[in-house]
């Protein structure tokens, strides 16, 4: 708009600030908690601002001394990276051919709806069968087992996202390549996948986040440092007789870092993927 009154401008800024505050408040409070001394967090009334900056918990959690809380935390961080990474890679690998097939063959799109329907089941319903299955294959308390379970959650989701990405690529481009003499694998490798790259990046990021944040299955299917993920480790911090709220907050800050970093790195691809404007005929 060319003409806007000062009142309107003020309103726009106020709305933006309000949204920012609502979105950022919990994160900022999490960070403040992580650097507050324990006394401040248990004081009544609560000290919203720390009396002094206390970074000891970061040292605790990042120390590599054996059998310390830090070692456990770092081990769970590694488990989370492995589980989420493997599940995401596998999900993309499964989803790309499936999504392409469904996108180019509308007649079988019902199958995708059928898969999505399984999403409606609450995780609790699947917990026992999955537990027994994993136990049978000896995959309980294993990063591979957990990644396999996550794959079942991520694959439908990524397939769905990728399908809409492939839908946006005109079929005529593939027809033209076919007439030009390209084989199916060449069409996918040289044209379709590069054109779908933004959507693939978006799907991968969301899949990674989904796996990273998952708590329920991780709690059920892991029991010690070999497979426990971050979410479970953080819960463990709260589970003892004395809870150090600052320590939990610190773990939360550290747990949030990897996804934020990945998000920042993939920012451009992510945005063009979200708006799907990246593909032009």
């Amino acid at each position, binding site marked *: 708009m060319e003409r806007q009154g000062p009142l309107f401008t003020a309103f726009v800024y106020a709305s933006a600030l309000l949204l920012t505050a609502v979105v950022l408040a919990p994160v900022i409070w999490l960070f403040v908690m992580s650097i507050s001394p324990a006394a401040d967090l248990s004081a009544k009334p609560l000290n919203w601002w720390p009396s002094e900056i206390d970074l000891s918990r970061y040292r605790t959690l990042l120390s590599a001394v054996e059998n310390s809380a830090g070692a456990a935390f770092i081990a769970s961080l590694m488990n989370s990276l492995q589980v989420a990474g493997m599940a995401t890679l596998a999900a993309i690998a499964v989803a790309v051919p499936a999504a392409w097939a469904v996108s180019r063959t509308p007649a079988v799109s019902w199958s995708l709806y059928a898969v999505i329907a399984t999403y409606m089941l609450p995780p609790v319903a699947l917990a026992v069968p999955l537990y027994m299955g994993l136990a049978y294959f000896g995959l309980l308390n294993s990063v591979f087992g957990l990644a396999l379970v996550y794959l079942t959650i991520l694959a439908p989701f990524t397939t769905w996202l990728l399908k809409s990405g492939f839908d946006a690529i005109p079929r005529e481009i593939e*027809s*033209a390549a076919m*007439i030009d003499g390209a*084989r199916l694998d*060449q069409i996918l490798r*040289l*044209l379709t996948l590069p054109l779908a790259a933004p959507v693939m990046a978006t799907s991968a990021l969301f899949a990674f986040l989904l796996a990273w944040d998952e708590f329920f299955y991780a709690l059920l299917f892991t029991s010690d440092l070999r497979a426990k993920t971050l979410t479970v480790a953080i819960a463990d911090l709260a589970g003892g007789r004395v809870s150090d709220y600052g320590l939990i907050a610190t773990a939360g800050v550290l747990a949030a870092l990897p996804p934020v970093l990945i998000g920042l790195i993939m920012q451009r691809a992510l945005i063009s993927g979200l708006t799907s404007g990246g593909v032009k*005929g």
Partner: protein
Amino acid sequence: MSALEIRNIQKRYGDVETLKGINIALESGEFLVLLGSSGCGKSTLLNIIAGLAEPSGGDILIGERSILGAHPKDRDIAMVFQSYALYPNMSVARNIGFGLEMRKVPTAEREKAVRDTAMLLQIENLLDRKPGQLSGGQRQRVAIGRALVRNPRVFLFDEPLSNLDAKLRMEMRTELKRLHQLLGTTVVYVTHDQIEAMTLATRIAVMRDGRIEQLGTPEEIYDRPATLYVAGFVGSPQMNILDAELTGSGLRIAGEEAFPLPETFRSAVTAGRRVKVGVRPEALRLASADVTGIRLPASIEVMELTGPELVTTARIGEQRITACLPPRTSLMPGSAQVFCFDEAALHLFDAENGRSLLAR
């Protein structure tokens, strides 16, 4: 030897018959335009020739060899799509050379072919760009270049100009005509634009409801339309179609006085038979006292000056008629005038089935 032969091609989707037996034989170097409104099956036919769709029956031969079941890449064809379908992630040079690249043509030879094609289409300066950086007309040229570079036996065009603005469309039309005259290639071209069809084609197939309504040279289609549909589809403004009645040896248009029927139609005469009279707007003139030909008294309603001509709408009884008159004709709305036209410009169609009554 025919370059392309379409034999009784049919296509059904479930109960819907999209193509009901199409037969066309095309000599080498011909420019065939499939003309029709949307949904007439022309694009389906093109896709079947290209191998992007399979027919339910019939056969297609390119160079005397059946290509049914052959992969599109083995049919010796190239296709230009309505949306251009350029590869957005590749440079113009690679777009044009992609077909050769896939066919493992050596790099040096490929680059030369791409350069020659680009030169022909005057797009040498664009070779390093991506399609997204090109204007509509430039993309169109790249799409044509991609087809030309492979030098196939048959070119297929699917409404290639419909995404361009009016001025550019005229330029590209001329360009296509120039290329066809220069290269003498065999072309099948789908369009719904009758001007494109008239100007480009060596033969036009007017299609309707999965059938060929008429197949002929542009002159035949324009001068001797076989049906009412063809008569109405080709020509702008549209041919005037008037209800009329045969009376003995004459013809009466909607209650006006009858005029004697020209020789050529005498065989069709059955008194009282209802017919449709067709006469093109550009065949109509204002009658002066001494003029010969068929006379139509009418009352003028609207005049529109387009520049080269004065498009005049008038009323004959309850029916409207359009005439293209010289631009400096002085007329008054509401005035009574007499139009006239030569006997040769008269078309008669059966009122029921729309077929031309011209003895052939």
